[in-house]
């Protein structure tokens, strides 16, 4: 009885507040927009019995999904989200790898402090960390003032409200997710392997490419997925740092829902976003499992 309750309580909670809501999204994505409350139809009318259920299912169709393929705003937004996620993942890797590497090479007594310094921003409000860049990147912002003062540029650069600002924001906020898995892979690495490679005639550079990088491969893969997957659906960064030209699907979904109040289309956008995410999520979990098996 106790075991049953222990399983049933969290189970039912997740079914009610995680699984069922998805089924509702799926159902509404097949409905039509209506000028009513709630603004979609058909409504399931259980009082009409079987007839009600039959006519309810008969009225569901894939029209919203067809609409998504005809209006090029949507597939452009999906593609541009994937592109932004891909480029910013690579940028985060380029910035994060040297930091993780230097942390793993630092004196052991320093490592807990360095680790703490990487984790600390993660506990600070995401919104505030994005906001911090608005004052820096603005036309009259500190970065432009600094560059003008240095004499590198004569006119302020437009960075805020462009994709460049979005990339900076993503690299900045997601950096800890990249550093931590790479660091934990590099920290476990046996130094004698590097010495062996150098003894056998490798230069330090080629020892790095032939030994260090392959041994940190799992950390790199994990870090890349941890950045890539959430960035695809990102909303805060493109809406605060991006401009009208920044097209990301999280923002499109938000506007479809809050501004256009087209719930069925917003639901269809969500369903397709989920289908896109399923592939990287499965690949990520497979990588994690392989790693666990290799360790255990």
């Amino acid at each position: 009885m106790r075991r049953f309750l222990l399983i049933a309580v969290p189970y039912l909670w997740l079914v009610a507040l995680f699984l069922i809501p998805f089924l509702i999204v799926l159902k509404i994505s097949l409905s039509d927009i209506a000028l009513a409350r709630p603004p979609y139809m058909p409504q399931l009318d259980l009082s009409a019995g079987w007839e009600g259920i039959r006519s309810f299912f008969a009225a569901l169709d894939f029209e919203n999904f067809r609409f998504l393929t005809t209006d090029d705003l949507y597939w452009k937004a999906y593609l541009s989200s994937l592109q932004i996620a891909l480029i910013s993942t690579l940028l985060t890797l380029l910035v994060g790898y040297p930091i993780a590497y230097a942390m793993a090479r630092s004196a052991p007594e320093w490592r807990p402090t360095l680790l703490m310094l990487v984790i600390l921003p993660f506990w600070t409000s995401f919104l505030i960390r994005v906001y911090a860049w608005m004052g820096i990147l603005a036309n009259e912002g500190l970065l432009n003032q600094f560059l003008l003062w240095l004499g590198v540029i004569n006119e302020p650069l437009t960075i805020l409200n462009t994709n460049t600002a979005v990339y900076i924001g993503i690299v900045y906020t997601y950096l800890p997710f990249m550093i931590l898995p790479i660091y934990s892979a590099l920290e476990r690495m046996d130094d004698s392997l590097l010495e062996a490679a150098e003894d056998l005639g490798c230069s330090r550079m080629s020892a790095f490419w032939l030994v260090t990088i392959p041994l940190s491969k799992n950390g790199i893969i994990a870090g890349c997925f941890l950045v890539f997957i959430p960035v695809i659906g990102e909303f805060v960064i493109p809406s605060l740092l991006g401009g009208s030209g920044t097209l990301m699907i999280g923002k499109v979904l938000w506007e479809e829902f809050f501004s256009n109040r087209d719930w069925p289309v917003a639901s269809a956008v969500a369903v397709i976003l989920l289908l896109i995410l399923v592939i990287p999520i499965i690949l990520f979990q497979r990588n994690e499992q392989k790693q666990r098996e290799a360790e255990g």
Partner: protein
Amino acid sequence: MRRFSWFNATALTLGFAFLYVPMIILVVYSFNESKLVTVWAGFSTQWYGELIRNEEFLNAAWVTIKVAVMSSTIATVLGTMAAYVLVRAGRFSGRTLFSGMIYAPLVMPEVITGLSLLLLFIGIGLDRGVLTIVLAHTTFSMCYVSVVVSSRLVSFDQSLEEAALDLGCSPFEAFRLVTLPIIAPAVISGWLLAFTLSLDDLVIASFTTGPSATTLPIKIFSAVRLGVSPEINALSTIMIAIVTVGVITASLVTKQAAVRQARDERMAERPA
């Protein structure tokens, strides 16, 4: 000993400068006298004064803290139960679905979670406000709690629990007297994680709230959309200060607890 290299020193300096300079600038400019955030006009604490007098922000802060305390507490109970089920309950029908539902919210885009919960609340006719945000936050943060707690449950020696049962404890007593003290640091960090996730959340709260409840992130977001303002800098500084003190204290406390626990477990294994 490892060679000290200029490359590593440069990577660390630039890396941490990149992580911390924007926040330092944010804090410094919260003490700026000028309304323009980018022009330094002298030291002043006036924005903190305006912030304290701003009732909308205070109300929002109060709602946010209420939501965070309630949701993280329920999430810690449910998440610890879920972790126990994942690690200890063995096979039961629907186990795959269960672990899927634990891990899926961790990678789910917030816009989808928010949208789906909102559609549920409207579907069952629940008035949107504090209650619906608490339900939403509990759901995604219980998954984080269960991941943190289950990693501790996996690593701890099950024979301690079995010994308690052999010595006449009921399963619940064994949990309360043996398991809970051992996993307590993980439960506490799970609670803290759930608490900060709730404090932080903009997207899910925006979807699931109604006109009666505005949280701080929603308030900040709508203010920030119009541009940079020194009041928001002051608010950010206060939040950064609280988090910094909290994280450092928590890490010191859990470190001490971990050291003590490792010693206790060793002593239990090897009687003198």
